């Protein structure tokens, strides 16, 4: 840690977290939350690409009605790998471990997270678990589907279930430790004056996410352990012939995996709150309602897991209870969406790339969320369960929602994290290409689902081919849309214009320090006297002067 700053403005680059130590060990043994965030950013992006390659395999196979591209066994491994990698290695850590790690301390005016070493351990656990999963993949993979349903995974599958299960188990602890860190940090490390209701909504979302992370993840951990023990020891907990119950596995599995989807989407919602408020240059409409709806989603989200079991043989009364609760959990998301929309009203909206992603999120999350209603209505779910309708629904939320939010957040914070600016032209094109490709890819799947095309099928009836071809075409366009940022963002690292500290003149604490920030975040502990998203004088920023400066440069 530097106690003395040596600033020679004309020659030496300013000391910031990126150049403060450039040995390998200064990165791999760092305790700086920002460096850990960058480590995660690289790993998570890598796994996103790997998962995307598997998706390409799926869409290529589905161009034709026959199962003719891959052997059935291989296809099964491909969609399983796609699911496991995207969910455990990408979606769950994506925003919390990258943007959350980087910006939560900055947003609340802290020097770091509460437990920096645990944060680093979190990354190592992630890499260890990912390593085991990749090893299992290279040995031949798993073919059980990411849901590992028994008895197929315990007694019938001849693939690397144990290794993959253990990999996921370890990654679970990475998630738990991240959540633990966030909760403690948010409770105890807010700067003076930063009350709960002055925090950015990004922090609220991550608090809600962390609640789920710590309470739900241990359940999948023990479930995976039971799965492994059952497979190895054949005790019978899930084996009906010996007295066990395969449906017990489904209940235990979904008890985590449903809240997990909220782990995946809540951080995205947090990013969107930031983007909408900041790019409309006004506070979020109904701040408290948005904050509490995050908590409500987290809490109610624990009560709806049975909607994955409507057709499983579960009692119809249980089904009715879960259907009711599922429709209830839709309400807080609706409230958020309305509040975001209302924030746009009388805003001063700039159409920068992050805002494009945010608007894209709004549209796609609307569709994704609304289609959840179809699935929550129990009678309709009977027809649609396990079909492509469900696949389309969750991809609209996960990709159309979360990934858009992730990309929006990366673009938004690019100048802050790297001190560079990317090409606005190319980024807007990428956003539009992504939006088009995404819709072409997934919208036909709603129709396919209602027609009756089941999930996890390598072959399908001929009459469904046209829709599948449309979908695969969309996949290739989406691939281009996702690939483009890789190029122009990396390009910007070397050739991009240097960014000013507060590129868009925003009032958040993270914007009040340098781009990129110094290792200790703030030279002096900030003292907060203004509301969140304060675009007036109370913020202490001189917007008027900034405006004049901008007008003068035109």
């Amino acid at each position: 840690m530097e106690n003395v700053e040596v600033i020679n403005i004309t020659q030496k680059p300013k000391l910031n977290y990126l150049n403060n130590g450039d040995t390998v060990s200064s990165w791999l043994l760092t305790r700086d939350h920002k460096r850990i965030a960058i480590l995660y950013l690289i790993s998570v992006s890598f796994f996103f690409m790997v998962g995307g390659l598997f998706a390409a395999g799926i869409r290529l196979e589905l161009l034709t009605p026959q199962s003719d591209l891959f052997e059935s066994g291989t296809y099964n491994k491909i969609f399983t790998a796609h699911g496991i990698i995207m969910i455990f290695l990408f979606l769950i850590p994506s925003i919390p471990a990258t943007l959350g790690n980087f910006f939560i301390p900055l947003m609340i005016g802290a020097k770091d997270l509460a437990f920096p070493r645990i944060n680093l351990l979190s990354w190592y656990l992630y890499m260890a678990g990912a390593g085991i999963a990749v090893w299992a993949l290279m040995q031949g993979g798993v073919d059980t589907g990411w849901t590992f349903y028994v008895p197929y995974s315990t007694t019938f599958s001849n693939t690397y279930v144990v290794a993959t299960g253990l990999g996921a188990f370890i990654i679970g602890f990475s998630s738990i430790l991240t959540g633990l860190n966030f909760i403690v940090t948010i409770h105890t490390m807010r700067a003076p004056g930063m009350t709960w209701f002055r925090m950015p909504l990004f922090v609220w979302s991550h608090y809600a996410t962390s609640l789920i992370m710590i309470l739900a993840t241990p359940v999948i951990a023990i479930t995976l352990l039971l799965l492994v023990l059952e497979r190895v020891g054949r005790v019978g907990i899930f084996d009906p012939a010996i007295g066990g119950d395969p449906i017990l596995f489904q209940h235990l599995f979904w008890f985590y995996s449903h809240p997990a989807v909220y782990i995946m989407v809540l951080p995205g919602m947090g990013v969107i709150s930031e983007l909408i408020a900041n790019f409309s240059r006004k506070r979020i409409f109904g701040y408290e309602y948005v904050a509490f709806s995050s908590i409500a989603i987290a809490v109610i989200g624990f009560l709806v897991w049975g909607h994955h079991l409507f057709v499983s043989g579960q009692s119809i009364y249980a089904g009715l209870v879960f259907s009711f609760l599922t429709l209830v959990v839709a309400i807080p998301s609706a409230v958020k969406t309305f509040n975001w929309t209302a924030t746009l009203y009388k805003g001063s909206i700039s159409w920068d790339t992050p805002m494009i992603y945010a608007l894209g999120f709004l549209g796609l999350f609307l569709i994704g969320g609304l289609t959840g209603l179809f699935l929550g209505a129990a009678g309709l779910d009977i027809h649609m369960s396990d079909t492509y309708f469900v696949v389309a629904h969750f991809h609209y939320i996960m990709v159309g929602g979360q990934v858009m939010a992730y990309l929006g957040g990366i673009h938004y914070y690019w100048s802050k994290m790297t001190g560079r600016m990317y090409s606005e032209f190319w980024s807007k094109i990428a956003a539009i290409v992504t939006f088009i490709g995404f819709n072409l890819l997934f919208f036909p799947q709603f129709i396919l689902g209602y027609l009756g095309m089941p999930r996890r099928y390598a072959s399908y009836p001929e009459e469904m081919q046209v829709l599948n071809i449309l979908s695969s075409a969309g996949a290739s366009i989406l691939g281009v849309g996702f690939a483009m940022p890789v190029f122009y963002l990396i390009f910007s690292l070397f050739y991009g214009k240097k960014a000013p500290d507060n590129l868009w003149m925003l009032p958040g604490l993270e914007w009040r320090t340098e781009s990129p920030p110094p290792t200790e975040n703030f030279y002096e502990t900030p003292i907060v006297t203004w509301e969140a998203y304060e675009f007036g004088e109370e913020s202490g920023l001189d917007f008027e002067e900034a405006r004049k400066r901008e007008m003068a440069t035109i």
Partner: protein
Amino acid sequence: MATNVDTHALDHHYHPPGLQHQFEDMGQQQESASIGMWVFLAQEIMFFGGLFTSYLVFRSKYPMAFAAGSNHLDVVMGALNTLVLIVSSLTMALAVYFAQKSNRNMQVIMIVLTMIFGATFLGVKAIEYTEKYNDGLVPFTGLNRRAKDDQHNRKSLEPESQHEQSLPSPNNPGHQPEAHGDYINPRGDFQWSDTSLVAIAQQGNFLTDWEKTGYFEDGEVSAARFQDKVRLFFWIYFAMTGLHALHMVIGLVLMAWLLWKAWRGTFSAEYYSPVEISGLYWHFVDIVWIFLFPLLYLLGRHFGGTH
């Protein structure tokens, strides 16, 4: 010490020993450590929760099998362990108290006592597990004692007159435990043959629907099928107490570290938070056992008389 005014805190660059760089002051650090430990414990509860759920599900499906298994756990040792843990929680709480009072010697003594009790718990558990190993009650093939002598195959299904004092082998009820080597178990399988509880439940008509099909084959009680369910009980027993014992071991390691630090005089009224949060962890491990003991050892138990 609380009596002196600490002017050091006024000095901008002074960092009390033990203050980590991300915190503003010790108060923040201690609060963080405390909240952190509570959050961690919440997570641990959910971790055990999956096992408790499985226990509940299977107990309600096969109460007789679970009662049979439960009756063969040694309630004396279980109760002893419960007592040991409760006392260890007392000594742990006292360790925290003495740390707060900056009393180094008493702290150390209390931590040592806590460790002794913890080790005792593990020792008793080891004895119990060994008994299970000897009796062929470990639910994994190969992990039970293999038979030495194949001339004395005395598997008897006679259920009457259990000796209350000694622990009868389930294969030879009424047989004295010293002669374990008699029964055959060449592969180290789980073995259970006493289905007497089923007959009793059948007569009293309190078999559950699952039991009415699960224990029977062709209308007769099937020892093999009953054995499967008892094996489930023991599996859950080992999983839950095993996971608990693992946490106990981790607790002992934690105590060892704490002991070392306490011996060096690290903890005082100004800085005792590690003792406090270690105490929290220890109490948690204790509480889990308080739940495990009645669920596994006491429910369904019949004291004295016949099953």
